[in-house]
């Protein structure tokens, strides 16, 4: 397998990795870089468990060729609670009961993070749209939506 050096910014740090550029960003993050917070539920863009931000936009890491990350900013769930304190979105997820098995949670939080960056006061419909690429089998989404709305309020003040 041919390897290629890919350089990008991962959670605020510059990284250079020699890897198969056609393997997925998801496997690069999980298997090579040991960032296991990003989950894998389908490997086909159909569940959203692998959601990370690529230059601020939510994408399915399982469909992004590693080589595509070259020169870009990649943000994963690990970046949100640096230094041990929870991000307001994470706090809201806990407080609103939005976490059950928690497997969809990292992806869900990242989709919420992308939404709140671009729209600090989303309505219920915008929230639903923003997480419509993230499947959750446990929660029926209600408390996740409540959490994202509450996180928007927290981030305002």
């Amino acid at each position, binding site marked *: 397998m041919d390897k290629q050096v890919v350089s990008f910014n991962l959670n605020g740090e510059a990284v250079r990795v020699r890897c198969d550029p056609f393997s997925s960003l998801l496997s690069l993050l999980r298997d090579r870089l040991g960032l296991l917070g990003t989950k894998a539920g389908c490997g*086909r863009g159909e569940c959203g468990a692998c959601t990370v931000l690529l230059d601020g936009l939510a994408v399915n890491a399982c469909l992004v060729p590693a080589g595509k990350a070259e020169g870009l900013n990649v943000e994963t769930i690990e970046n949100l609670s640096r230094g041990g304190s929870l991000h307001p979105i994470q706090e809201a997820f806990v407080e609103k009961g939005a976490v059950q098995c928690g497997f969809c949670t990292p992806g869900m939080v990242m989709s919420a993070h992308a939404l709140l960056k671009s729209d600090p006061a989303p309505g219920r419909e915008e929230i639903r749209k923003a997480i419509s690429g993230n499947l959750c089998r446990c929660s029926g989404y209600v408390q996740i939506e409540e959490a994202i709305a509450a996180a928007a309020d927290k981030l305002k003040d």
Partner: protein
Amino acid sequence: MKYIIAKSLDGALAALQDTGTGRARVVAGATDLFLQEQPDRLIDISRLPELQEVTLEKGLLRVGAAVTHNAASASGLIWEKAAALAEASTLLGSPQIRNIGTLGGNVANAAPAADAAVALAALGAEAVLFDSPGRFYVKPFAGLYAGYNCSRVDSCREILAWFLIRPAGPGQGSAFLRFTARGALSLPLANAAARVTLEKGRLKEVSLVVAPAGPAPSRLKKTEALLLGSNLSGKTWSMAEESASAEVAVRGSALRCSVEYRRRLIGILAGRVLSLAAQRAQRNR
């Protein structure tokens, strides 16, 4: 294996032509390509500025092939001049797919009911292509399909650069609708797009495209002809529904729906999408 992020269109074309290191292929968002067979080299054209532009020049709307669905759905210019395309891009896939998947990829992947492709077909878009020696061609949309999931765009040699669209002027409007089994993450059971021109409250020009019906987005020419000169009444739309349903040649699948249902659905969507396009045309004075 090499993944090359193209810095310029010329550079991308040169990389395609250099076959010394194995087969190369153009890639944009990779949302389709990633799960398909992969060549030796991928030339990523998604960061070429000129392919991400949306401009109105010389009376034509020029939309870059590397424009993502979310960029298209956020573009005021596309909503104003080619609403059907913006609508298709808004409804497709999921937020994650729309953030990275592109219009060019949607077309070059040649899936029978690709949403943006259906809208572009109804809008009468033309495609501007460059081949690896650097020549460029303008092709009508209908000429882009070779068969089921098989494009005439040779992505190993050609780059789809722009779509040229006649912008909606006074009395003109377009719309796109799709029917899915689920609110997101669902390919359409059927979709339809229309573009109309009105004159004195009647249909002067009609373009109606539906899918899936054959390998490419399918223009319903008989229905279009039938509707010319009609007023904008409910009767016209029922006539459109009936005619579209009769005209369209469809296939069924155990997974999605039967032939009968798809035929009905396409009729209903045709009636609705024409009516929506006409409403927009009326508002567009």
